[in-house]
């Protein structure tokens, strides 16, 4: 009985034999990732309209929107990304896709940045740039009535509205 107990630890030999080799010779063999794995995100430049919904929802601020005089810049910095995929969930035009790419190490920090520049379209009245052309198309698709005022910048719209109201008062 006690001998049987003493010999118990040797059972591990048969367990080990049965389990065999379980490690993979990565990178020579394929890594063990499943179909659901979330990796780096890919932004489709032909769909993105620069609305900034993704930057708004991004928990670590890996996606950021910078507005300059003439353009809207969407910057994706992989170094901060936590690969949660919230941006893909909220993107209204489905421009963001979560890929399963994870081999992201690099010796050049510029490789970690993806920059997307959207040129802004000018206002018909004052010429001030205010909207990306793709955003304009998208708004028109959803609200066809917007055609009447979409080419004016918010300032000019406000001015026109005030003018109309004050004209009526008189």
């Amino acid at each position, binding site marked *: 009985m006690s001998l049987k107990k003493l010999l118990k630890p040797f059972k591990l030999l048969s*367990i*080990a034999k049965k389990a065999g080799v*379980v490690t993979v010779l990565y990178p020579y063999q394929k890594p063990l990732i499943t179909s659901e*794995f979330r990796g780096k995100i890919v932004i489709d430049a032909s769909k993105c309209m620069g609305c900034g919904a993704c930057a708004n929802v991004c928990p670590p601020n890996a996606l950021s929107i910078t507005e300059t005089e003439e353009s809207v810049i969407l910057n994706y910095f992989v170094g901060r990304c936590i*690969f949660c995929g919230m941006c893909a969930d909220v993107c209204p035009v489905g421009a963001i896709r979560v890929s399963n790419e994870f081999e992201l190490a690099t010796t050049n920090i510029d490789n970690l940045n993806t920059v997307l520049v959207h040129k802004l379209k000018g206002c018909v009245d004052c010429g001030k740039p205010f909207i990306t052309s793709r955003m304009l198309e998208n708004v028109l698709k959803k609200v066809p009535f917007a055609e009447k005022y979409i080419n004016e910048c918010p300032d000019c719209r406000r001015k026109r509205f005030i003018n109309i109201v004050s004209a009526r008062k008189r």
Partner: protein
Amino acid sequence: MADSVEETKRNLEEMVNVLKKYADNIEFVERVGLIVRVKKERLREVSRFVHDILDSYFRTMAAVDERPINNTFAAYYVFGKDEMGLNIIIETHTDPLDPEIPSISDLVPAADWYELEAWDLLGIKFTGRRLYRFILPDEWPEGLYPLRKDVDYNLRPVKPLARKASKQAPAGPRIPFGPYHPALHEPEYFELFVEGEKVVDVRYNGFHVHRGIEKLAESPRFTYQKVPFLAERICGICGFVHSVSYTMSVERAAKIDVPERAEYIRSIILEVERLHSHLLWIGVACHLLGYDAGFMHSWRIREKVMVLSELLTGSRKTYGINLVGGVRKDINKDKIQAIMNTLKYIKEEFSKLVEVIAHVPQIVKRATGTGILPRDDARKLSVVGPVARGSGLNRDVRKDYPYAAYPYVSFKVPVYSEGDNLARLFVRIDEVFESINILEQLLDKIPQGPIFAEKIEVPEGVIGIGNVEAPRGEAIHVTITGKGRPYRWRVRAPTYQNIPALKIMLKDAPLADAPLTIASIDPCFSCTDRLLVIDLKTGKAVKKTMEEIIKKKKVN
């Protein structure tokens, strides 16, 4: 069943009647508990009554700077009456200019750390005890309390010394190395005072990696839905526990009804996480005792769980599928089948491995009778998780304060009364099998339906408590809601409650047992650490890693 409900009601009424003597105001808030508002002068009496006579455990304390709201500092002491599943929250306020609250750490020993933390971070003076710097680094300026609302979240008062670059730096990429070795575990620090081979006293010097997460969550760059991702990063092993705790605290405060299917999915992921964590710990315990074969095989089994969690959530760790109001990822038939297959594999392989481990002489002999935590001390310190259950306390949040889908399943809570390292090992082994059992029931019962709540509106200024039984004990989050983000978010990880118990476990024990004992509480700082051994006879300090001590078993 009806009787017990009646009885609970009667007990509650009795309790309220007695508490009325002390309190200014008593309010029962559904899903949160009994809020007892007292003047700070009466805090000690009430605490003694609640802790000793009502026999409730101390769960957490949240100190809050409420000066912008009502011009006071507030402290919320959360006691839990396990048998009734009731939280008793003692709320007290103090003067904004000279905040002082009488200390209760002599009556409730578990409150010791909480008071020190509140003093460090909010500057609330606890009278009748010694206060010293506990969390903040030594070079932090005096009189600057980071959790106060008038301190910016991104304030950096200490200018770190610039590192000198070498004069002729060679071209090419540069890799910073240190101050901590990247391969070593998290920086936690124990000072063990020894006489020869015997440990005489223990001092803990921690919080080297205090990241100010609570303050960050209050900052304008966070919203209610961003904090779950931050909460998940509190711990590398049990991240989902914290994200569920946080979302639960907000949902309970705002009275959001989470769809049942989402609750089931949360429970499934929580149990999968427990499986991987326990398998990890059992492996580490084997490794610490020099039985590396057991370590390898335990982690071989664990790998299947990791792949499973990736399939279920999209990531091996930090799953990122939890939000206030529900979950982001549904599970389908294929995934349920995948879980079933993995469970079958784990059950088979793990029972074989356990049979071997339980008969390896070096494990059984080294774990038996070492690191004993007597039941009385465990009760006094309100320890949680396997540490409590190994010392004969029948505490499990899943049973006592039911949450998510746990009310719908039946399971046993393993309790051992020996209080030694072996008892804690057996608790965890039993829990692996219980987890498999729970998962099978959950998969069998999971209902159809939506996975996200329809309406999410969080009112301002309400308190909510979220608790989850993490693999290493109870994690509890207290959230006071604010505008768009938490006004105050108080996190308490299980290790916070368990480390003070180490002092009792290590005292008068041989030094060679210290590493296993420290690891036996499954501290959240992965597993083992660097220690400083001070020989009281010679006064010499020797720095050693735990592994060195184990190998040598002798300190010169």
